[in-house]
Structures are given as structure tokens and as C-alpha cells.
């Protein structure tokens, strides 16, 4: 019997981080198991990671580079592929300048450092990520408010947990996995859940605040209304460590009395009062928040207010509160990313840079600005693109515009595992390796104080890990990289005194945790205080104080639309088996969730003659998509909840059904609908109508 080798590595089927033991037999991974020694996941694994063998060895996976020839894909060598891409890029640079090339990624896939380095050394400021409305947006908002991202400190057992628009047991594993939350909760922490939808956590919660979708910032300001009126704040912290407290308190008193907050949010005043008291009076208490708070016009203001709550209650950088984890001592990814290599001249050309200053500071553009430039040629033409592990045709707002823009590019290269609706628009396809096929000092972009060794378990076909593709393409563009991946990892690890080989055996590194660092050094902001009154936003000519802006398409702001579109669509429901647009072709996962689901309150469904399991058209002023009805009395009858990320890999034409159940055919990406400094698109809250779908 062939020997089974066990290799310790780290998953990346979502943002990654869970420890894995991969079982290898005759050069093939036959099984993966959770690694009990992992400080992140403690041995658990989710359905996505457990199904990796079905992804890695999927019959549809593209295992070698390809080029499109007369509309058909044909196999080529890596040399031809890289020469073609670098040749095209050099042509565009010679004719239009490097800013006419966009480089894009999707959700965080642990190659941010390489992605940024490639773009910076290429000389383009036009880097597309999901960061305008996901994670990087909170990094930007927290950076300007308190200097660093404060992650909830589950390791020190918060006595009260505020789970805000988030279910880490299902998804959103940025800093902490669900297991860490669950352990703290099981130790008796009080739980406040803020969610328009009654899920598992809402049922467990001591208090469930069922807010109107998109009004999170107003609710957070409502917490402050109670905390200020009842003097529940930490007077010493407020006096010594918050900049602009008086002005902020005045705004709360004037603009956000509890009754008004209740009217905006649909949450009863007494419930807001109870929640604010529970959070403010329980020490320590932590806030764990998710992307729904970021994917609206209130993106930056919500995060700023949430940081304000942590600060004013004395929970910032306090054990069991929200803390600044110490980095584990490797070289910083900002250094690897070579941000300084991008000249001021190029930086100034960043699309939308003058308007979306926070996005610009985070070195990205909001995609809308890129689509505009491609489609109109203004302020300058954008001619070529390189998209890595991203499927924007399905996952970005206003899918029709995204598709039109990508089609208009003269040249597009993509890296992916499969021919997605986005990859089909490309001229060159570069086959990427899964997490089983890469060596990396993983998680180095997160704020949890760890880096973990993801080591290559196998090689499959001619696939390369994304890091290597960036590196080899970069070298062909004349950029400075390393000879091998191992050399680059050794450089990253150098300050720790470990080589990649040594780190691989060690498994992970953890920064030494210290608390209350502000007592000595203050916060990393211009005033050295938590800037509830932001001197940065003020300098940019923006409102320096957090506020709630009414959602641009809501029953309040657009009463004229109500007759035709009477419901609030809460788009983008996450599921545990899929990660955005990924995994629809994985048999084990698709069996669990064969169809896109739209949740409708039973009373609303009845009104439209819709029964459980019926296909339903969901329609907004911009388009429609069909999903399958699931009745749920845990949502407000005026709210419709729909899944995102749907396309159909089993449909073999080049569109792969991208326009059937794609909720982003309904979403808006107009400049008026976006966060004014971060350019966060509203992927979440809009008006819609529903009807039974006759032609299934």
C-alpha cells in the first residue's frame, strides 16, 4: 500500500487562515483535515476548505496557459503567455502610459503584497480590489480615526460581544474565525446581534436589534445618544484621548436624539437603550463587525462611529475589547509592495483620486472610475487590464456596465482556476495554483498578529501560484523581483531570524501582545488621539464628524419609486458553502446549495402568490435576476433578502449564465450612491419588486 504523507499547511478557500493537514498519496491530495495545533482555527474546517480536493482536481479546471484565437481558446506555453502579456503592456505603456493599464484582484487572496508590487513597479496607480467596500475600507477608516484596525480580542474573553452585521460562524473570517467567537460566547459573554435578518446568532442573542437595512451608522450614533445622555462613557479616556468629543457630543444631542434614531432604523428606542447600556456597562466588551456596514454610502462613517464606541467606553486596546495586535516581526507588506516606487506624477493620475481620497490613500481606485475611463476615454484612455482571482462581472455593482467595460478593453489577461464569465472576456488565461500549490508567509496582511506557513503540498498541471505569476510577469516588464519564491519569502522573514525552511517547520509566528499602548505613545493619528473629529477628513474638505446619510434609494429618499418598487432589497446574503462567486462547480457544495436563494417573508410571498421553492424575479430600476424563494419569517415583510455571486458553470456557453441570477444586475454604482471618501459601492440596499417567474 502506498504511503500517505501528511503535510501541514494553511487554507485559503476564503480569506484563509485555517490550519490544515493535507494527506498526500502518490503525489495527489486525497484528503484534508483541520489542524488542531492551528492558533486560528483550532482544528475546525469549513465546507469550502474541506472540498478543496474537488476544486483542485476538478475536470473543468484550466491547467495550462491559454490564448484566445478567433474566439476559441487554445493551449500555449508559459513563455508565450507571459511574452504576450508583457508585450501588450509595453505597447500600451509606450503609447498611453502605464496608467492606461488596470490591475485588479477580487477579495483578499493572500497575494496583496505581490499584486501591489507588480502595479507599483509597472507604474500604474489604477489598482482595483474589493477594498473600496470590503475590509480595506475599514482599514482606511480606522487608520484615520485611531491609527490602526482594532480587532475584537476573543482570546481575552469579552464579557459582551456586539455582533454587527456579521456571522463569523458562516463567513467573514477576517481576523477571527467563528470558533474563537464561539469559545468566548460559551464562556458566558452577553451577545448583542444587529442584523435585519433573524439568523442563528440572532436567536442566541440576549438582544437582537432588527434594523432597517443600511441604517447601521444611524444605530451606532443612537448608541452614542444613550451613552452620552446617561453618562455611560469613560470620562478619563474621553477627556484625554478623544479629539473633538465636545463637537461630537453636540452633534449627537442635536441630530440624533433616540426617537429620531428609532425612526430611521426601525429599532424601538427602548431596545437601543438596553443594547447601548449593556455594551457600555459590561467590561470588557468588543464589537465584531461585517461588510454590510461597509457596502453603503455610510461606509466610513459607520466604522468611525464604531471605533468611537470602542474608545468612549474604554474598550479600545483593552484586553477583551477591541485591540491593536502587534505584528509578528516580518518585513511589512507595505515594504514588499514598493508603494514608494510609484512616482508622485503617476499617483496624481489615479482615477477618481481627487474625489475618493481615502481610497487613494489606501492605494486603490473604486472600480466605477475605471469603468468610466474605459467606456468614455476620460480623463484618459484605459486600454489593457490584468485581473487576478476576480469575477467582477458577477461580483461588482452594476454588472452590465462592468461587462461592457471589460469587453471594450483592447487587451485583457486573467489568472484563475476556471473559465468564469469574466475570464471568458480575456485574451490570455494564466492558470493559478490553489492554496495546495503555493508557498507563502500567509496572513501577512491581516491585523491579528499572526503569520502562518502555507506550504506547497502538490503541483497540478502547469499551474503557478499567483505570487509566481506576478513575479515572472514583473521580471519580463523589467521589474525588480527575486529569483525564486523562496528567496522572496526569506526576504520577508529576514527580520525574524528565520528562513522559509525554518518557518515552515515552526508553522506560525505571533507578535507579542501588549495592551493600552496609547498610554505611552498616543494613537497614530495627527493629534495622537482617537479622532472622532477627523483632522484628515477636515483637510479633505469633508465633514469631520460622523453622521448618517440616508441610503440614496430607500423608501425615505425615493418615495416616488415606492409604487413600482415597494420592497427594500437586502442583497448579498452570504452562505457557508460559497465564497462570493466561487465554488458553484464543486459537486459537494452545490449539492448542499443547488440554487440561488431569495428570502421572502411568508406574508409578502402570499401577496404575490409565491410559494416556497418558486422561481422569483427580483427587479430594481436597473435590472432583474431570478432566484428561488425561501420563506423566512425572521425578516421584515418589507425586506427581501437575496444571495449574491451566482453564475452557472454548468452552462457551457461563454456567458455561463452570468445574467440569470446575478443580483448585481440590480445594484447601482452611480457616484451619488457611493461613500464620498472611500468610493464604497452600495452592494446591499436598494428598492425592488418581486414577481413569480413563469418561464423557468
Amino acid at each position, binding site marked *: 500500500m502506498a504511503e500517505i504523507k501528511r503535510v501541514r499547511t494553511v487554507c485559503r478557500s476564503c480569506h484563509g487562515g485555517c490550519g490544515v493537514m493535507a494527506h498526500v498519496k502518490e503525489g495527489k491530495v486525497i484528503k484534508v483535515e483541520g489542524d488542531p495545533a492551528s492558533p486560528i482555527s483550532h482544528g*475546525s*474546517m469549513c465546507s469550502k476548505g474541506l472540498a478543496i480536493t474537488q476544486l483542485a482536481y476538478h475536470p473543468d479546471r484550466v491547467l495550462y496557459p491559454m490564448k484566445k484565437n478567433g474566439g476559441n481558446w487554445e493551449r500555449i506555453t508559459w513563455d508565450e503567455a507571459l511574452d504576450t502579456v508583457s508585450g501588450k503592456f509595453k505597447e500600451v505603456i509606450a503609447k498611453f502610459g502605464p496608467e492606461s493599464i488596470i490591475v485588479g484582484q477580487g477579495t483578499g487572496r493572500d497575494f496583496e503584497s505581490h499584486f501591489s508590487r507588480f502595479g507599483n513597479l509597472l507604474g500604474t496607480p489604477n489598482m482595483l480590489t474589493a477594498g473600496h467596500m470590503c475590509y480595506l475600507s475599514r482599514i482606511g477608516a480606522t487608520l484615520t480615526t485611531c491609527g490602526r484596525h482594532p480587532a475584537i480580542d476573543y482570546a481575552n474573553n469579552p464579557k459582551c460581544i456586539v455582533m454587527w452585521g456579521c456571522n463569523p460562524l458562516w463567513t467573514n473570517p477576517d481576523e477571527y474565525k467563528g470558533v474563537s467567537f464561539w469559545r468566548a460566547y460559551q464562556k458566558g459573554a452577553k451577545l448583542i446581534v444587529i442584523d435585519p435578518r433573524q439568523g442563528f*446568532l440572532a436567536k442566541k442573542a440576549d438582544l437582537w436589534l432588527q434594523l432597517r437595512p443600511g441604517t447601521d451608522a444611524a444605530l451606532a450614533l443612537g448608541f452614542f445618544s444613550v451613552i452620552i445622555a446617561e453618562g455611560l462613557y469613560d470620562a478619563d479616556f474621553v477627556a484625554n484621548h478623544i479629539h473633538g468629543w465636545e463637537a461630537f457630543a453636540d452633534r449627537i444631542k442635536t441630530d440624533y436624539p433616540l426617537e429620531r434614531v428609532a425612526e430611521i432604523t426601525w429599532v424601538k428606542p427602548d431596545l437601543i437603550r438596553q443594547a447601548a447600556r449593556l455594551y457600555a456597562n459590561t467590561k470588557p466588551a468588543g464589537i465584531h463587525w461585517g461588510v454590510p456596514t461597509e457596502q453603503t454610502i455610510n461606509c466610513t462613517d459607520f466604522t468611525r462611529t464604531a471605533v468611537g464606541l470602542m474608545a468612549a467606553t474604554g474598550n479600545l486596546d483593552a484586553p477583551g475589547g477591541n485591540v491593536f495586535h502587534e505584528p509578528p516581526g516580518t518585513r511589512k507588506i507595505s515594504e514588499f509592495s514598493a508603494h514608494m516606487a510609484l512616482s508622485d506624477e503617476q499617483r496624481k493620475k489615479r482615477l477618481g483620486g481627487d474625489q475618493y481620497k481615502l481610497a487613494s490613500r489606501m492605494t486603490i481606485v473604486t472600480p466605477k472610475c475605471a469603468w468610466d475611463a474605459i467606456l468614455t476615454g476620460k480623463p484618459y484612455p484605459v486600454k489593457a487590464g490584468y485581473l487576478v482571482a476576480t469575477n467582477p462581472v458577477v461580483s461588482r455593482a452594476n454588472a452590465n456596465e462592468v461587462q461592457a467595460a471589460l469587453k471594450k478593453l483592447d487587451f485583457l489577461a486573467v489568472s484563475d482556476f476556471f473559465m468564469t464569465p469574466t475570464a471568458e472576456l480575456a485574451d490570455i488565461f494564466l492558470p493559478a495554483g490553489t492554496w495546495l500549490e503555493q508557498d507563502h508567509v500567509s496572513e501577512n496582511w491581516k491585523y491579528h498578529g499572526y503569520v502562518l506557513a502555507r506550504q506547497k503540498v502538490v503541483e497540478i498541471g502547469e499551474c503557478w501560484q499567483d505570487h509566481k505569476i506576478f513575479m515572472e510577469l514583473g521580471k519580463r516588464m523589467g521589474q525588480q523581483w527575486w529569483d525564486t519564491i523562496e528567496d522572496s519569502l526569506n526576504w520577508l522573514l529576514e527580520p525574524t531570524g528565520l528562513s522559509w525552511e525554518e518557518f515552515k517547520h515552526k508553522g506560525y509566528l505571533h507578535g507579542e501582545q501588549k495592551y493600552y499602548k496609547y498610554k505611552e505613545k498616543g494613537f497614530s493619528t495627527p493629534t495622537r488621539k482617537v479622532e472622532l473629529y477627523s483632522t484628515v477628513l477636515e483637510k479633505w474638505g469633508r465633514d469631520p464628524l460622523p453622521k448618517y446619510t440616508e441610503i440614496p434609494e430607500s423608501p425615505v429618499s425615493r418615495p416616488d419609486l415606492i409604487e413600482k418598487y415597494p420592497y427594500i432589497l437586502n442583497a448579498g446574503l452570504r452562505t457557508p458553502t460559497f465564497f462570493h462567486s466561487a465554488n458553484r462547480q464543486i459537486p459537494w457544495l452545490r449539492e448542499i446549495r443547488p440554487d440561488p436563494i431569495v428570502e421572502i417573508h411568508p406574508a409578502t410571498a402570499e401577496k404575490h402568490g409565491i410559494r416556497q421553492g418558486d422561481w422569483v424575479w427580483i427587479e430594481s430600476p436597473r435590472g432583474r435576476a431570478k432566484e428561488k424563494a425561501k420563506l423566512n419569517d425572521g425578516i421584515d415583510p418589507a425586506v427581501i433578502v437575496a444571495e449574491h455571486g451566482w453564475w452557472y458553470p454548468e452552462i457551457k456557453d461563454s456567458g455561463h449564465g452570468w445574467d440569470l441570477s446575478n443580483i448585481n444586475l440590480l445594484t447601482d454604482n452611480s457616484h451619488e450612491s457611493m461613500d464620498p471618501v472611500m468610493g464604497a459601492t452600495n452592494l446591499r440596499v436598494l428598492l425592488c419588486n418581486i414577481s413569480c417567474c413563469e418561464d423557468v
Partner: protein
Amino acid sequence: MEKISLLFSRKNCMGCHACEVACKQEHGLGVGPRLVRVLEKSPDYIPIYCHHCAKAPCREACPVDAISRNEQGIVLIDNELCIGCRECIEACPFGAMQFEDNREIAVKCDLCIQRLAENKKPACMSVCPTACIYLDGQKSIATVFEKATSPEVR
């Protein structure tokens, strides 16, 4: 020898389905048979699994004695003996007996007997993030529901 069985605290099942995929992987099963399965009835989740009944209806229904119960109380099916008549599937009150189309035989949870022999948890249990799946020496179904509502399981 002490009898063992698997218990699901339904209260803490949050519908992640990791148990299902871990089970499929462990048993090399494709689409079709689901030896453990979580049904969704928002916002509740209902795990469907083999209770390894003492007086197992599947075993009693089997016309060829392909189903047996070992000394640990684990109800097992012998793939070689199974004739694919589906009587056991009809008989199981939980819907835990499954059919595999390729081999045309009934399949069922074996409590990961090979893993138990290596002193490892069953696959489903090993991945559950809320630890709502656990092994117990008690075997009766009544115990399952007592456990699910007992105070130490929040």
C-alpha cells in the same frame, strides 16, 4: 465494551454543513448519498443522522441480513451483502439510510469506525465549529434529546 453513539445538539447547529462535506470526503462519496445532512428551516437547522438504534429498524427490515450491530453498538452495513432493495431506507424513521446510485446499494453512517480505531473523532464531529456533535457512551435516542436541552449545553 462500552457502547457509543453520536449525539447532535440541535440547538447549536448553525447550518454550516461542514459535517456533510467532511463525511463525504472521509467516505469517498460523491453527489447523492448524504450520511449526515442538515436541513434548513430558517432560522433553524435540523441535523439528520444515524442514531445507531438499539432495535434498528433498518437492520430488521433487511431481507439478507446485510445490516448488523457490533459490540460497540455501531450499526453497520456490509456492502457485499446488500442487494439494493431499499427496504432499509423505507424503514429508517430518521431518513438516515441513503442509496448510492453508482453501486446500487444502500449506504449508511459507520461512525467513522476506522477513525475511532485510531482514537480519532468521527469526521463530522472533528470539524463542527460549535461542537454540537459529540460522542456519548449512552445509546438511547431519549438521551439525545435530554442532552440537547441539558443546561451545560448552552
